[in-house]
């Protein structure tokens, strides 16, 4: 897994805000676009790209993109 690729895939789930400054330390839920719909888009992206099943708790306990990346990485078999 590649964190840069992951950041760009995660950023693609946002439509309204500028995500060009997203880094591994970005607090991905702390912006005006974040909603439960964004969460579902991220879950779907992770299912598509990494065949990993994220839970609601995984999203709730993650703050930074690095946090969610680490969870996906730990569950990934790729």
């Amino acid at each position, binding site marked *: 897994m590649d964190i840069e690729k992951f950041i760009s895939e995660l950023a693609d789930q946002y439509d309204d805000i500028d995500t060009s400054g997203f880094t591994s330390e970005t607090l991905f839920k702390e912006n005006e676009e974040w*909603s*439960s*719909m964004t*969460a*579902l888009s991220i*879950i*779907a992206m992770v*299912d598509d790209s990494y065949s990993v*099943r*994220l*839970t*609601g*708790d995984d*999203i709730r306990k993650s703050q930074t993109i690095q946090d969610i990346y680490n969870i996906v990485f730990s569950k990934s078999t790729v």
Partner: protein
Amino acid sequence: MAFLDLKNVIIRGISACVPSTIEENIDLVDIPTLDIDKLIKTTGVERRHIITPGTCMSDLCFAAAEKLIKELNWDKADIEGLIIVTQSPDYLVPATSPILQDRLGLSQNCFTIDISLGCSGYVYGLSTLGSYMQNGMIKKALLCVGDVSSISCSKNDKSTYPLFGDAGTVTALEYCNGAEGMKFHLSSDGSGYKSIIIPAGGHRNKITHESLKEHQLEQGICRSDVQLWLDGMDVFSFGISKAPDTVNKLLEKFDIAKESVDHFYFHQANMMMNERIRKKLKLPEEKVPYSLKNFGNTSSASIPLTMVTETAHKLRSGVNSIITCGFGVGLSWATMQCTTELLVIPDLIYYE
């Protein structure tokens, strides 16, 4: 791995009944921070038929059963089994199925069972009733499947209230020697039991003054312990991985070509989830009907309701290979394939 191959049992007819009261989601303005346009677009639910307090799933199923029995021209004395699948029973005790057996005027020579399953319940119900019937001792039986989820949802919970509608359905099964029957794949994962739950009111957590109080969990989500809790993220993640998986397992196990199937009926969860499932399975839109828009998520009733409201004209004529796939509360999921021929399907019934 739980596969079943039941011979000699066919679906003869299906009927569905919904409350006549309609609630338009666009009119929901009570929930703070609810972007209703976005919610309607994502969930695909524009309106829902909801009961008035006091109406039970068995009332909807009673109306559906009476009409179906009449159109099938069945003699009630010949009906020897009745299964109810619901998570909104009339009483905690006793089971609802004997009550409905009596109310319908079915003979006492009729077995009855209640099954407590939701989204996957239609498929599980077919597998249970089909198993009872496949040897020919019982020739005619009814599967009554439905829920009145609307009363279990908090009106102040955007994660449940705009989603759920009410419906009752009845499917008539008949023994038919030599028929190809029904094929199943059945699964469970109780580790996810908290993902969809009414925490209090059973025996683990009795109803107390405290459990009746609504609590604010987050913006737009306010509910009590006797109301339905739904972890949308958990369920979404579960659905998009397990639903395609169970369909593929069934197709593979029984060597069924995907292209040979005429209709795929999925549990109507929400549009975003259902569309992802359809795309993962690479199914064309015209083979995957939705009743979500006008009826919402009707829990266990969603598959037969979709068959009736969206494809009745096709199922009434000719031969159709169908797949039904339910997934959700439990967690529980299941898929069934069968071939239907000239189904008897009364027009949708509206309960006053």
